[in-house]
């Protein structure tokens, strides 16, 4: 239920959610509207440009950044269901530092860019009600959200409001899963060693579910867990908060 007075939010879906798991985007949309936002999905969005930026291709990254800035600057906020993509957008000012026109516009957008779970808690003061999920879950802190945007307590606070959900601590919850964007395909052997340790730690919790806030990390962890024959099912945290815990987990068919 969006209200006429609520903030106008531009939802940055992210390229991975768009292609691989749209329900994460719809969960974000639903919760933002429930929390009183007027949410729009600008058509001019594709990707935040992180693959180019992390590869050193600053020119392409800057050009994609300008496109994102133009598409989202009319809104009060840019909100994304990913700490990694939102984190990249907060770095646009560095990317466009020498551009007298786009530099300030990048800074203005960066200042109103948020990861969705922290936005719900910190900005909107949202607390879910009437949620129930009888399961045990463990939570991995995706690195960009944790270190670039301070996403740590907010998802845990939201999950604490889910009745019946038991949160189990994950050894090394703040340690990278080895995804790293292009890293995992450029250095597959090193990435594999890292994700193997992560999967072992996840399995050791004995939890039914693995939750995290970034689809890239989740695909890495879910893919490794499945290859190992683990029974742990993986969801984006926002799916659980939007009441999607009964739906198919990552890699499950409906």
């Amino acid at each position: 239920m969006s209200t006429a007075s609520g903030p106008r939010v531009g939802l940055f879906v992210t390229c991975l959610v768009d292609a691989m798991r749209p329900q994460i985007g719809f969960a974000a949309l639903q919760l933002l509207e429930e929390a009183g936002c007027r949410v729009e999905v600008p058509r001019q969005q594709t990707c935040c440009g992180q693959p180019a930026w992390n590869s050193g291709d600053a020119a392409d990254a800057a050009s994609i950044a300008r496109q994102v800035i133009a598409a989202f600057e009319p809104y009060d906020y840019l909100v994304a269901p990913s700490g990694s993509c939102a984190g990249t957008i907060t770095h646009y000012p560095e990317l466009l530092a020498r551009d007298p026109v786009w530099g300030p516009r990048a800074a203005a957008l960066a200042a109103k860019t948020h990861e969705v779970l922290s936005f719900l808690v910190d900005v909107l003061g949202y607390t879910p009600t009437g949620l129930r999920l009888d399961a045990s879950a463990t939570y991995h802190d995706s690195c960009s959200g944790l270190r670039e945007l301070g996403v740590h307590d907010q998802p845990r606070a939201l999950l604490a409001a889910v009745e019946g959900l038991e949160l189990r601590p994950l050894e090394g919850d703040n340690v990278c899963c080895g995804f790293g964007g292009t890293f995992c395909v450029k250095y597959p052997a090193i990435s594999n060693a890292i994700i193997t340790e992560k999967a072992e730690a996840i399995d050791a919790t004995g939890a039914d579910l693995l939750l995290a806030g970034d689809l890239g990390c989740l695909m890495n962890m879910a893919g490794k867990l499945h290859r190992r024959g683990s029974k742990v099912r993986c969801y984006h945290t926002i799916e659980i908060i939007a009441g999607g815990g009964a739906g198919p987990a990552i890699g499950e068919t409906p």
Partner: protein
Amino acid sequence: MTAQDQTSFKARAGAALADTTLKLAIDRTTGTAERKRAAALAGFPEFEAARARGAAIKDHVIANLDHYLETFERNATAAGAKVHWAATAEEACDIVVRLCREADAKHVTRSKSMLGEEIHLPDALATAGIERVETDLAEHIIQLAGEHPSHIIWPAMHRTREQVAVLFNADHKPPPDAEDPASMVQSARRVLREKFLSADVGISGANFLVADTGATCTVTNEGNAELTTTPPRVHIVTAGIEKLVPTTAHAFALLRLLVRSATGGELTQYTTFHCGPKRPGDADGPEEMHIVLVDNGRSRMIKDEFREMLRCIRCGACMNHCVVYRQIGGHAYGGTYPGPMGAVLTPVLDGLKQSRDLPFACTMNGRCAEVCPVRIPLPTLLRAWRVRSWEEGLEKAPMRAGLGLWATLARRPGLYRLASAIAVRTLRVLGRSGWIRSLPLAGGWTEHRDLPAPAGGTFMERYKAERAKGDSR
């Protein structure tokens, strides 16, 4: 460059990953270091404020480096030390070898110094026919093994106690009484004690150069620096020009950060200031003190995008907390300095072309910057190397082409949506079970893990359809 650089980074990393003993050795030491650091910070709530101040002190020094270099030179000279300047590693080695020859040195003792490793001083002394005795226990181990340090704080981190026992049993006469760490340390103490007292020259590094007193500062837990720098007739210090601090009090502010970050202690057992040679009448101490100030690329860093790297106080926390270092260890990096700080510094020292993998072999998770006691933005600096790599055309053609195609699409939202819709449908066909076990062009992914198939339809398609439905109602 070191001998191991002949192989590729991927080959070295692969060999390291296959070495389960190495992994065990790394886990034992980095695990302890991580826990002890965390405990030390828990007892120092002022850490965040202290590291901001530490970064500011280093920035202040670098911003006034010419002033501090001249001040240090003046005060060290006044204290009786002789200050030498070296623009390159070769010049620095030449100076040290010349000083050793002038002292008619047959054998020299050396107290661990990463700058000494950086300039390849051990090789230079060997070439000059001067017997070198490494006195730090870890350096003693790797000297016996004929290796280079794999960590800047624990150079022999890659070796298990069993492997150390093999080395000591072969070299120490008599061999250690037993193969536990305590017996082996006792044996090294016995063997090295006589070397300390008969050395002609003692060579140390410096953790700090104190501008207003002209003193150099070493930090060791074993006491080997003092035993290296006191008995011989000549004491030679090699130090990078970024090691300056304005006063002793500034050194203390940084020491609080350094020690907690490195070993989890509050102050290392021996923090020693060396100011000139022995004074008239002093009971002991060297008759000559020489300080070799080494540039080796540092002055260049002042004006480029790597200036913040000059803050580094060499604590090793970044590597202890690095997921990649903890899998492959230090030798795989191929340079003097491993881990995140090494991935920034090695391209400075050895050239980007030779070490191009290092800035890329990083997941950009940011933990190194989070633990850095002087707030060096390591991922930002690694990214700066990636930009240089792209601009200098060092990126391989397939990656360039792939990214180019992707960027072309990403700039054309209509075309992008068409392409992603097709890709999603293709992947859905390949992954009817929900998972894709093998995918051409994505072997790096599917070799080690399954790829979840897309859940169905892109968000943008479904959103458009739902809105259309909503409007028609």
